[in-house]
């Protein structure tokens, strides 16, 4: 499928660009898109379980990267141990955030939740800055930096890791939501929270679980992208917002549509940066976001839904 898109774009640009260059943009777009997809799925999981858009989602991406670094450098863990520790710690942070801030909120109106999660996001970012400082750090690649050549384009092994891990996460997610009792219970909450609680589902536990899963996914995204883009206390903001854009493209689905949304966004961004202007790269995602919210709030693939009051 990825190749098909590349070819059609090639036809549109009238063969003016080298095939290898387009392929290069496509491949790097797909790998950054996979990151957006993971973050976007995290957004959707919480949204579906609770109706909350968690503005702090990006901070868990940052925590994933920063905590890996912490375990690597401070505690001298090997990489294979540092990664699960970082994921576990970020997940714990996600659960803590839900327990300490979201659950005790007395008047959970959308405005209050927006303000609360924005405040939480800034607080987490600020604490990370106090603890780890403002410097940008690099994390070693998982398996070397030997470039691999594909049809004239070169990619790093880390790109393959990103695509592979994303595929794995999405499959696990799908299995969880379709095949396990707890996953089905969470879907029930997404359809109708009241009805779910009437059939004996502990909705509050599901809410906590949704925060746990999505902060874990965010952390994974942050860890696999860190060797490519470096990590600092403030990387969460932009990545989180792009992940949200992916979720909007996918109509806030926690499955394939959001993954597609992330990939499309990544490729658009990478092509836009390469073919139009790199300065406006970040604007592309937000223009897509605004256009979709205005014209197709149900997402690119969804059917229109009647408005509920």
């Amino acid at each position, binding site marked *: 499928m990825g190749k098909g898109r590349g070819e059609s774009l090639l036809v549109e640009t009238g063969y003016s660009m080298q095939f290898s260059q387009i392929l290069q943009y496509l491949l790097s777009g797909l790998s950054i898109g996979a990151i957006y997809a993971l973050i976007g799925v995290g957004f959707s999981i919480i*949204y579906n379980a609770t109706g*909350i*858009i968690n*503005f702090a989602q990006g901070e868990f991406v940052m925590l994933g990267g920063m905590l890996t670094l912490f375990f690597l450098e401070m505690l001298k863990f090997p990489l294979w141990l540092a990664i699960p520790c970082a994921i576990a710690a970020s997940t714990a942070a996600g659960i803590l955030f839900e327990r300490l*801030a979201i659950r*005790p*909120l*007395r*008047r959970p109106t*959308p*405005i*209050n*939740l*927006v*303000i*609360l999660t*924005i*405040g*939480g*996001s*800034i*607080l*987490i*970012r*600020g*604490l990370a*800055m*106090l603890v780890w400082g*403002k410097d940008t750090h690099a994390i070693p690649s998982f398996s070397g930096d030997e470039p691999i050549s594909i049809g004239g384009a070169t990619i790093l092994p880390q790109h393959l890791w990103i695509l592979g891990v994303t595929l794995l996460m999405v499959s696990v997610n799908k299995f969880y939501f379709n095949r396990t009792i707890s996953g089905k219970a969470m879907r029930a909450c997404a359809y109708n929270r009241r009805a779910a609680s009437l059939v004996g589902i502990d909705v509050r536990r599901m809410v906590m679980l949704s925060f746990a899963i999505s902060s874990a996914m965010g952390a994974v995204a942050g860890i696999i992208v860190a060797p490519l883009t470096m990590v600092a206390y403030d990387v969460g*903001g932009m990545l989180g*917002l792009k992940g*949200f*854009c992916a979720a*909007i493209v996918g109509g806030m689905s926690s499955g394939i549509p959001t993954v597609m949304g992330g990939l499309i966004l990544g490729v658009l961004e990478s092509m836009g940066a390469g073919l139009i*202007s790199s*300065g*406006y790269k*970040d*604007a592309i995602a*937000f*223009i897509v*976001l*605004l256009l979709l*919210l*205005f014209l197709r*709030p149900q997402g690119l693939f969804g059917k229109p839904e009647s408005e509920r*009051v």
Partner: protein
Amino acid sequence: MKRELLKFLAFALFVCLVPLACRGGYLINVLLFVGINTMLAIALNLLLGYAGQISLGHAGFFGLGAYLSGILTVTYGWNPWLAMPAAAALVGCLAGLLGFPILKLRGHYLAMATLGMGIIIYIVFNETIELTGGPSGLSGIANLSIGSLTFDSDCKNYYLVWFFALVTVLFSLNVANSRIGRALKAINDSEVAARVVGVNARLLKVQIFALSAIICSLAGSLYAHCMTFISPASFGFNFSVELLTMVVIGGLGSVYGPFLGAALLTLLPEILRGANDYDIVIYGALLVLMVMFMPGGLVRGFPELRRRLAKRKGGVEHA
């Protein structure tokens, strides 16, 4: 209404006398920023506090006002007094046009859309280098002047800015007590109910959005002409959050709350001097704690706290 007017006059008198107490110097400069931030906080409060519509892109309107004023005076040699209303009108039109699709959205989606809008504006400031000077900013913006009086010192600018800020306070006081203010509050409580009783919610929301943007633009113009230098860094997402914090801390939907929030948040970094990096942590913590424990803001929170304490004391005495 008479009491309100007295309150306002006392506030205005207070504002006029403050500079005498601090005898010029650096503090005046900070208080000038309190004035600009008060205007911005009031603008956001009209939208968020009264109509209940959140915006995370107001720093963008502030920046547009500043840049339009700057570009019109520096590059095109306009008179600052002409550039200011021109900028405000343009920003108002833009906000009005954007308002129709944006304000169709609610809650979280509205927050994200306005955030996206703010970020796009910020990127444009950075990238249109031949127009705005890009990340290194735009300098040499003329001071405002009336006849032979040029507003070129902090003290003169203080009175200039606070003149506009007080007009804004008076204006928001009027809106709050008017038919429109009541309609906005109705929308805030329940948009459906408001429409049922004949409020044109759609149009009113867009109007208040545009109005709020116009006030931000005026504040931006003032900022540009007082500072004579502007750069995109002042108009990013962080500043939008700072504005939100001011309004939430002060008290949503109150007239003097935004001033309180603006004063607190502008003075806080000065008080915590040396702890410059900590302010972001403090903003975050303040937002979280306020929403959790004092959702009415300082303006309502303190009286409520006192009442609760008094009640507890009373209860003990009775027992």
